[in-house]
Each structure stands twice: as structure tokens, then as C-alpha cells.
């Protein structure tokens, strides 16, 4: 009886929403926090210098590098792991159902 009840109130209706062992949600939130920190005062003020590094203005270089890193990290966290059958989470899922 409890089993069927559990299934009814299961908060996630698809496996992607279920917080898996990869903890996608925590990583994305952390990325938001880290990104916001790196792209604001006071870290920005460190690079707010009239100075060329490798021929580029440091502020310009810093902002675009951080930006690129955030995008890369996001793509990494959200990467589609294919094929699914070779995914270790898959066996877990089978067991769950």
C-alpha cells in the first residue's frame, strides 16, 4: 500500500527532472553564483586597467574568457549523454521502476 502511495506522490514525472547522481541542478546553481561573482565588483575592478595583455585590453580579455568558460561549463553540465544504454544511471532507473 505504501509503495503505491509513494509512486503516486513521486514529485518527478520524468527521469530527467529527477535529481540523478550527476546533480545537474546543484552544478547549474553553483555556476550561476560563481558566474555572478566573477562578473561583478570587486573582481572586475582588478581587471579595470588601461593595459594591453598579449595585444588585448585586459578587461575585454577577462570578460570574454570568463564568459566563454561559463558557456563551456554549461554545455558540459547539460551535455546529452548518449547512448543511454551505456549509461550507468540507466540500470538504476530500471530498478526504480
Amino acid at each position, binding site marked *: 500500500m505504501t509503495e503505491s502511495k509513494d509512486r*503516486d506522490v513521486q514529485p518527478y514525472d520524468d527521469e530527467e527532472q529527477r535529481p540523478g547522481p550527476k546533480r545537474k*541542478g546543484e552544478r547549474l546553481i553553483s555556476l550561476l553564483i560563481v558566474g555572478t561573482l566573477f562578473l561583478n565588483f570587486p573582481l572586475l*575592478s582588478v581587471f579595470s586597467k588601461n593595459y594591453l595583455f598579449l595585444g588585448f585590453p585586459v578587461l575585454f580579455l577577462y570578460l570574454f574568457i570568463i564568459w566563454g568558460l561559463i558557456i563551456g561549463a554549461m554545455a558540459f553540465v547539460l551535455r546529452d549523454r548518449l547512448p543511454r544504454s551505456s549509461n550507468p544511471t540507466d540500470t538504476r532507473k530500471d530498478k526504480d521502476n
Partner: protein
Amino acid sequence: MLQQWIILLVSFGYLGILFAVAYYGDKRADAGRSIISNPYIYTFSIAVYCTGWTFYGSVGRAASTGVGFLPIYLGPTLAATVWWFALRKIIRLSKVNNITSIADFIASRYGKSSVIGGLVTVISIVGIMPYIALQLKAISSSFNVLFNYNRQNMGELGAGHDTALYVALVLAVFSILFGTRHIDVTERHEGMVAAIAFESIVKLLAFSAVGIFVTFMMFDGPRDLFSQAALVPEIAKLMTMEPLPGGYASWLALTFISMTAIMFLPRQFQILVVENVNEKHVRTASWLFPLYLFAINIFVLPIAFAGIMFFQTGTMDADMFILTLPLKGEQEALALFVFIGGLSAATGMVIVETIALSTMLCNDLLMPVLLRLRLLRRDDMGRTLLAIRRGGILLILLLGYLYFRLIGESYALVTIGLVSFAAAAQFAPAILLGIYWKGASRRGALAGLAGGFAVWAYTLLLPSFAISGWIPTSLVEPGPFGIFELGSYHLFNLTGFDPITHSVFWSMLFNVGLMVGVSLFGRQEALDQLQAARFVDVYKKRVIDTSDAPLWHGKTSVSDLRGLVTRMIGPEKADAAFRSYALRHALEFHDDTLADESLIAFAERELAGTVGAASARVMVSSIIEGEALSIEGLMKVLDETSQVIEYSHRLEQKSRELETATSELKRTNERLKELDRMKDEFVSTVSHELRTPLTSIRAFSEILQDDVNMDPQQRQQLLRIVVKETERLTRLVNQVLDFTKIESGSYQWVHEKLDLVSVVQEAAAATSQLSHNKNISITRESPQGPVLVFGDNDRLVQVIINLLSNAIKYCGQDTGKVHIRLSCTDDKARIEVKDNGPGIEPGERERVFERFHQLGDSSKSKPHGTGLGLAICKTIIENHNGRIWVESNQPSGSSFVFTLPLLADSRKSSGFPVQE
């Protein structure tokens, strides 16, 4: 030099291509082979975010603030990190509820309130007006630059008013053709999305082409460009954060409003949510869209720096550098391509924005009003809706043109756009709190939106009119009535921020503060509560299953319902919808049957897809008799909560029962333990009491046995003691037997009618020898005539003998006096045995009736009795429904009193006492 006809031909040719793309997209969608159903088209369509603002304005802003253009793109990148939960949840909610616009979404969340829907629509239209003006300005300026460059009238490079008007009209026609060709139940426009995605590719290519041309053709790569730029003091200044007005606070504020703008600008909501085909596309878009922004921004700074270097300060509008640089380099074809790119950026925005806004205007502002005024009684409502929307598109563009005419010349592109961003940010609290916090109420959202919007209008919109000279500047600076604290740019004396940051701070404070405050201290209505639960718990299966739960509690026929839906969405679609419903539920409709609740809910949902949730609700309720929210339906959705509550109630009850049972068990256990202890005590006391006489009997017997030559007199004395002790032993054993017999209930009582007078006589006679021995006088007092009770003669005699012998025992030799008195009250016989012995301490009076309780210190003196006598008396009296107790006498001695219920016929005979 470019001729006007060439520019026009290319422009219209391009618009023609767009139309072809849209047409193809629609055709494919109709055939069921969607071309937009992939994450890449989805991502490119989101890039409708990059408008004329990005295309022209970013360079302009970079030329004056350095990296100050970037927060507008960093914000969306940061926001995209949470798309995976927040955006997906919003998409899911919109699909479940057939949401058509952001106003519809917010209204639907807050109890399908048409007031909220209307307010959001008003905020959107007023808030987006500057943004549309910006696009008109961008297109007309770029057209004029392209046309007039190198001609004599260089001074008129600004945006001509007439050009802007033509642009507005052309765009209106174009948007109408795109967006309102037919009314769709889900309000999705596949062709439009395809065209927008195509435009996004064009603008990215055009921008990159200029970037590459400037960086690698006009300069020798980026390093060359930057090193030359660093030598210009004016540019060197732009390489730090210093030129940004408002500094880091402004940077943060801009990041924040663009985080909200990417999701809550009406066109972004349209593309991200309403036009979304598959919510899994969000996965790719979350990183690919920021990458697009990254790509389109990488050349902004080089182009801006090059522009400053090539054109003397002030001679050329920095917003148009991207166009004037290729013209300067005599690349007219490239310039034309850039113009097309800019056209793409601006038209894309205008098309989506006007379609989204006109849908909102129609569904959330006009329809509820028209429905309430009962002006919509025409059979074919579909046509009416289309006409309203087309009119809406034209109206919105003309409003944009009006704003452009009023203030367009006074502001740079980005500054105009930021005003709109700050307006879109007002939707963030209502949506984000709404989808995660069930307590967010309709009144709270209404207060928050209205408060935030009012502050925004006062601190950003009003000054823009003032600066353009349309209202007196004294209203803004120093403030109305000269009050500095009320000035639009330093409200409540808050200074040190630039106008945008200042406005964002105050409007958000009012918005969130009012929303949370009113929600916390107000009450939620039923429908509000219901929608809150549905929205917050959309991922919980139970709630989704009740998406067409029976919420309507009223009567209507299937034909009425079908008629309503047909009027709104046309006969073909209505038939298809009803057929699929019937198929799904294995039903067969007859037109005159009563529509059940779930069919009504289904019809409402279908209507919501066309006219919005609030209007759909009004419409359905107009044809339902006895309309009311059904309590059962409400309960079903809130079921989860109530089940949990019920479950915990049951649990509580169980635990209470358990507690009661436990304490009962505890009590029983205590009682058992007590009994056990009493039994042990009893056994040990009895053994002890038995041993005492046995010991003396044995001792004396041994003496008698050993000492053969004992003096006969002494021997006689010892034998007497032995006999006496044996008697005592016998008595003790008898009493124990009696007692246990009575206690265990196995004694056979012989109840009969008795005369207590004779009972007392019998007992007194039995103890006369005893009293005689101690020379104690016993006096008796009893009424004349019989005192009748119902009882066991032998036992009652035993009680009185016990009391008498006790009295004799404790009385002094010769001086003792014992008096026994029998009397009657109304319904009781009372017998009192009084002595003049030492008396009993008050504390002992209760305890004398306990088993084996001996008066006096048993360790010092030999006990006088067995300790069972009074206990037996008490048991016997209580068995006769009587009561026994001790009273003390003055000046000394004690009285043992017991009462017994009188038999009815003895009450009359109350005689005089007889002395003896």
C-alpha cells in the same frame, strides 16, 4: 553611391524571402513535418533578443562606455543557467494550461484573474513602446545613413520622421501577414519562428562580416587595432570600467534586468515558451544561445574603437558606426548587407513583439471587457478576434512611432531600450514567486505589479518625456512642487545611482515588497489557491492528471458548449477537438445531453488557447447555469495536501489511542505489581506471625522434654503457655483462612433477615468471659424493637466480637469501660463500640484496617493480635454495603463505628433506647 530604389528593392526583396521562409514553415507544419522542431532553430529564434539595439546600439554604447554594453548579454548568459528548471517549468505549465502569452500566464497563475491579465498587458504595451520606437529609429536611421552618406545633405543623417512612419506601416502590414493569417488554438506560429531563426542567422553573419572587415581589412588584425586604439587617450579611457555611468552598481543592475528581460519580455516569452515545440530543446539552447550572444558581441569593441579612430568625435552617430565604417571603406555591397542585417534584427523584434502584444491586447484586455459588456454576440467570433489583433498590431506600431516622434531624437538606442527592460523586470517577481511559492496571492501580485509599474513610470518614463520637452522639466528636476525628495532621479533622496539603477532599485523594492507583504498578510481566494497549487506542483503527477478536473459546478448542454467553441475557433477545429475528446474518453455525444464537468473543463482549456485563460473562464461561465467552482473539484486538486493532513490526523489519533492504551497497561501493571507485592507481604507476614507462636511452643516443649525433673507447678505453667500459644496459632490460621476466603470471593455468604439487637446480644455474651477476666464492664444501648438488616449472622457476630475484644484488649485492667450502642438513622443502622483505652493516633486511624497492621511499635512489644481482625471486619462490613471507621473519644479512648443499610420495614419501629 547607393540609390534609394536599390535599397528599397533589396529591403523588400529580403522581406519577400522572409515571407517565403515563413510560408514554407507553415506548410511543413500543416503537413506535420515541422522544420522548427529542433534545438538549433529554437536557439536561433531565441536570438530575436538581439534587436536593432544590439546591432547598432551596442557599438554606440561601447563608444561611450567601453564594456558597458556587455551586461545586457552577460545577464541572459547567467539566466540561462537556471533555464533548465525555471524555464522548463514555465514551458510545462504553459503547455498544460494552453497559455498564449505572458499576461495569460500571470493571470492564469493568479486565479485566472482578468484584472491581472489586463494590468500585465498595459505594463507590456506601455513598457515596450520605447523598445519599438528604438527599432523604428534604428531602421530609419540606418536607411537615411545608407542613402545620404557622401551626399550633400550629410547634416540630415538623423532619422527622418517620415521614413520612420513608412517603416512602421510596412512593418505593421508585414506583422499582420505573418502573425494573424489565421487563429490557431494554441497560438503557435511555426512559419514566423522559422523566419525569425533565419533572420538571426542573417544578422549574425552581417555583424561578423563587418567585424572581420574592420578588424582584418581596415586594420591588421585585432592586436593592431587595439594597440593603435590604446594610443588615443579618448579610447584608452574606454578600456576600463570608469566611463560606465553609475559604475559597478549600474553594472549589476543592468545584469539583473537583462536576466529578467531574456525570459519576461513579451516577445521572449512568446518565443521561449509559447512557440516552444519540445521542452527538451531547452537543454541545448541553454548553452548555445549564450554562445550566439558571445559571437555577436565579440566584434563590438573593435568596431567601436575603429569608429572613434576614423571619425572625429561628434561628426558621426556612434550607433551607426557599423554602417558608416564599410561606407568609409567604400564597401557599398557590405554596407547594404549590414543594412539588411540591421533590418533583420529590427523586423524580427517588431514582428514577434507586436504579435505577442496584440494577442495580449486582444485576449487579456479587450476580450474580458467586451465579454462583460456582452458586446460579443456574433456567430463567427474568429473573425472578430482576427480583426482585433490586426488592429492591435497597427495600434502598437503607431504607439511606438508616437513615442519615437516624442522623444526619439533625445536618446541613444540603448538608453531607450533599457527603459523597456526595466519594465519587463516588473514581471519577474510575479512569475518566479508564482511558480515556486504557493502563498503568492492574486492581491499580492496585483499590488506588486501595480506598485512596481507606477514607480517605473515615475522614475523612467516620465523623465523621458520631460527631457524631450513635452512636459515641464521641473517635474523631474528638482521635483514636483520643487520638492527634491520627489524628483524622478533621486526619489526619497536616494542619490549616487544612474537613472536606470535608481529606478530598478525602487521599482523592485516596491514590487517584491508589496507582493510578498500583501500575500503574507492577506487571504487567498479559492480559485487563486487552486491555481497556485497547480502551478507550483505541476511536476507532481496527481495535479497534472486533474488538469481537466471537474471544477465547474453547473449545467449546460453539449450543443451549447460546442456552439461556443465553434464560434471561437471555427467549426473544423471545434469538431476535431470534440471528436478527439470523445475518443479519448470513449464517449458518444448527443447534442442535447448534459455536458459533464470534465467536458466543460476541456472546452475551457480549448478556449483558453485562443482567447486566454481569464476570457475563457468568463465565456464558459456565461453559458453555464448556476456557475460556481465545485468544491469537489477544488478538493481533488488540493487532495494531496488534504490527504497529508488527513493522514497526519489519523496518525495523531492512533498515537493518542496508543498512549491511552499504554497508560492503561501501565496502570494495570502497577496494580498487578502492587498485588504481587501485597501477596508477598501477606505471605511473609503470615509466616512471621505463624512462627512467633510456633517458636514459643517449640521452646517450651523442648524445655519440658529436656527437664524431666521440673517442678510440676512450673511444668503446669509452661504447658498453659503452650496451650495458649497453640490456641493463638489456631486462631491465626482460622483468620487467615477466613480472610483469604472472603478476599478471593469464594466464601459463601448466607444473607438473611436479621435483628441486629440479637446479634449484638450474641456477641456481647460471647465476650463476657473475656471482659469478666479483666474486670471490665460492658454496657449496651439499643432501641426497643427489632433493628432489621439483611446480612450474614455469623459474620456480623464475628465483627462485633472482634471490635469488643479489641476494646477489652486495649482497656486497662479494672478501670476499662466498654460501651456498645446500636441506633438507627433514616435508612441506616449504626453500631458503635466505645472504650476508654489509650486511643488511636489520627494518622493511624485509616491504617488500622489494613492487613497485619499492628498498633504500637511491633519491634518493641509483643503484638497483641494477629493484625487481621480489623481487616476482616472491614471486608465483611463492606460486603454488606456498610461502612466502618474509627472516631476518637474525649477525653480518651476510641470508638469503632460501623453502619449497615436498614431493611425497609424496620424503619418505622424506632423505640426508646434501653439501658442495661
